């Protein structure tokens, strides 16, 4: 039994948690799925490898999961950041979730937010060179080409909202697309609706998105919606120093300001 499985087993045996949310084998060898381990002897179901990409944090907000009792979550770095960001947004309370950090050596359970903050302080952050390059590639296109690119990307959107379902920060009980007084977003999945939906989603995540990439992974049409989020995350970082999910401090970039914020675009 590996360290992850052992740790999960210990937690369950000691009744420190009621369920361990982790990754298990999917229906095909290359696929992974979320598993909910509730008995110590099921711990060997837990695996962790490169293919385990889903951000499991959003399960902790589900009423069904909450009903099971205290949960431990197998957490990659984005998952840890998600937990802290959820904490700043009053969605989870301290010591209500145990994080099992994976991908950086030892699996030492992090039982409170302070421990997660400390753990994250030593983890490198920022976008990879490849990610930055992808962004730069689109930025370097002409305006018309950018419009054409997104037009063609978004033309595939079927408004299935899988992105929303996969996103741990999309926890609103009634999403803006469901608000109909007024009807902010047109219902049909036409160009206008698709554009508005994706712009709104990006703006709603600006300064909050912890860049886990789950939305793009979930998109059945393989639209690179994560790039919209990456753009705003980069801007929020550069302009406002926003790095969501690194602490439980309430520092949402769009709910604060500096008198010296850049404004050369305003005349």
């Amino acid at each position, binding site marked *: 039994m590996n360290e992850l499985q052992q740790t999960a087993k210990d937690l369950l045996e000691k009744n420190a948690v009621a369920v361990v949310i982790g990754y298990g084998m999917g229906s095909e060898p290359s696929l992974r799925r979320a598993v909910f381990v509730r008995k110590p002897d099921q711990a060997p179901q837990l695996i962790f490898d490169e293919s385990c990409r889903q951000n499991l944090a959003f399960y902790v907000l589900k009423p069904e999961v909450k009903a099971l009792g205290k949960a431990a979550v197998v957490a990659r770095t984005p998952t840890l950041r998600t937990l802290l960001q959820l904490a700043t947004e*009053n969605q989870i309370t301290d010591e209500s979730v145990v994080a099992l950090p994976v991908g950086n050596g030892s699996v030492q359970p992090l039982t409170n937010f302070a421990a997660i903050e400390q753990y994250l302080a030593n983890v490198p952050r920022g976008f990879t060179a490849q990610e930055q390059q992808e962004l730069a590639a689109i930025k370097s296109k002409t305006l018309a080409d950018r419009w054409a690119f997104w037009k063609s990307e978004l033309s595939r959107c079927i408004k299935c909202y899988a992105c929303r379902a996969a996103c741990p920060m999309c926890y609103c009980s*009634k999403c*803006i697309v469901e608000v109909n007084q*007024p009807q*902010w977003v047109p219902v049909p999945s036409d160009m206008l609706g698709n554009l508005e939906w994706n712009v709104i989603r990006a703006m709603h995540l600006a300064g909050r998105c912890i860049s886990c990439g789950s939305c793009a992974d979930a998109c059945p049409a393989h639209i690179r919606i994560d790039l919209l989020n990456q753009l705003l995350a980069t801007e929020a970082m550069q302009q406002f120093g926003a790095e969501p999910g690194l602490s439980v401090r309430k520092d949402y970039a769009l*709910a*604060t300001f500096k008198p010296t914020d850049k404004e050369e675009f305003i005349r």
Partner: protein
Amino acid sequence: MPRIGVFICHCGENISGTVDCAEVAKVSAEFPGVVHSVDYKYMCSDPGQNLIKNAIQEKKLTGVVVAACSPRMHEPTFRRACAEGGLNPFLCEMANLREHCSWVHEKLPATTEKAIDLVRIMVEKVKRNRPLFSINVPVTKTALVLGGGIAGIQAALDIANAGHKVIMVERQASIGGHMAQLSETFPTLDCSQCILTPRMVEVAQHPNITLYTYAELEKLDGFIGNFRAVIRKKAKSIDEKLCTGCGVCFQKCPNKKILSEFNTHLGTRTAIYVPFPQAVPNKPVIDREHCMYFQKGKCRICEKFCPTKAIRFDQQDELIEVNVGAVVAATGYEVKDTDFFPEYGYGKYPDIITGLQFERLASASGPTGGVIKRPSDGRIPETIAFIACAGSRDPAKGISYCSKICCMYTAKHAMLYKHKVHQGKAYVFYMDIRAGGKMYEEFVRRTIEEDEVHYVRGRVSRIYDRDGKLVVRGVDTLLNAKPIEIEADMVVLATAMVAQPDAEELAQKMKVSYDENKFLSEAHPKLRPVEMNTAGIFVAGACQAPKDIPETVAQASAAASKVAGLFSKDELSREPVVAVVSRTGPPEFSNCVGCFLCESACPYQAIEHEEIKTRDGKLIKTVAKINQGVCQGCGTCVALCRTKSIDLQGFTNEQIFAELVSL
């Protein structure tokens, strides 16, 4: 179905000169929902207003659009007319055909087209207006004044004299603040205590003022008209009812070597003490940190000698809860100490003192009886240097602002020194002289011309000791920037005026904003100089920014008049343009997910947490709630709310959406 009435005003020729008003009325009549559309020469005239009132009744209108001038001009007029006609005033909107159309465009078809559009936009909006009602908030007519310096004293007396109750909280054992420490005041040189102490006594005796000294604000909740404050009354260790202030206790107290705060550490006091002879209340407190009984368990001499048996060693801090309708923050300032200056010796030279210390030396009631003596050896300084801008205007030391009073008090100090030590030499090192004020410039000139104080323009780079003298290395930038070295016996630093060390904590307690220097921020730098952006909290004196006594008193009176204005009615009536959080049925109860990201965006701290519970008290969820007494209706939270569960009355999402649709 909506029944909208449209009323087009010609404004004489002002609108009809370029806009075809009859055409606008004709087209408007065809808009869905419009049941009445007329044009008239002067809509704001009595006959014009009657047109509206009559139409409301005759046509059973559910909404009115007056297409006339700017709503900033006549919206109140027409809303009142609607109300008189029996329609909720908030069901009336104005289309601005004059300032935004007829006056800014030529007589062209496009101008009339625009006018029609403007009417259509407002028709679409008004269809979605809902009746709104003024928000009435009861007012508790008691003011809480924080701080018993001259600012607090002035504010408290003015409010009390207007007939309202005042609770004054002062942290020290006596009121009086820094002004009680000053020797004489510029530019008149009247004795500070002589003008202040009668006011202090008035506070103590005023039937409308309750005074808590040796007390601090512990907590402040609530909103304008309805604050609830918790005051911590620190244990004075005496029974104030029994104590007569006879003074036997501090004559007998064996611990006589405690540095006196009132005398800026240049004199001493006992462990049981009154800060100064004219203290109000003139009853002692025991400083437990220095009391032998509290520290070592033995002594109790004061208790033995107290003729009224008023000593209470077992007294505890007391928490008092009070309801107040307004708060005046008048918590004052501190000055930087000499240890703030590395280049002036980190405070290690006893003969380098602060301006406030000089005040005590110059004061007839001070530790030297008004004789200027060196703290180190008691000699009278033959050469004295005053250094202005010590710490002020010094971004490198983190203080970029001008402390405003130093130029004047430095001139006063130099003058007082020359009056007391006739043969002495006085130098003032300065950068600029800022003497804007009645008789201020004249005062400075007198210091230079009549008292022959030497003003040297240049900053002092360093001070060090040499054979019992202080070598002051400065420069005269007016003399070809020549380095100047003065051997002084004493140096007085006009150290920067700074916020109280706990100003930030206090601001957070009151939920008011403060600037980078921890001075409390007024609501508007020009037009609301004594209000804070939390309604019902006012500011006076140097806790807001450095200022001198006349300015402080003026601001305190201004704050008091604001409080008196607020207390002039039993209820506070407010425009209902405020944000609201929508509620829905179970199981969600509200679309608000309780992320509270709006909380920090609100400039007024109007967003509260509301717990939704089941009948048996189980928490279902926590959602945002707008305190309508505090909300000013800017709508920043509305734009930020992802689920659109906050909306702004009068400018709802539906209304604005409809305006856009009608384009």
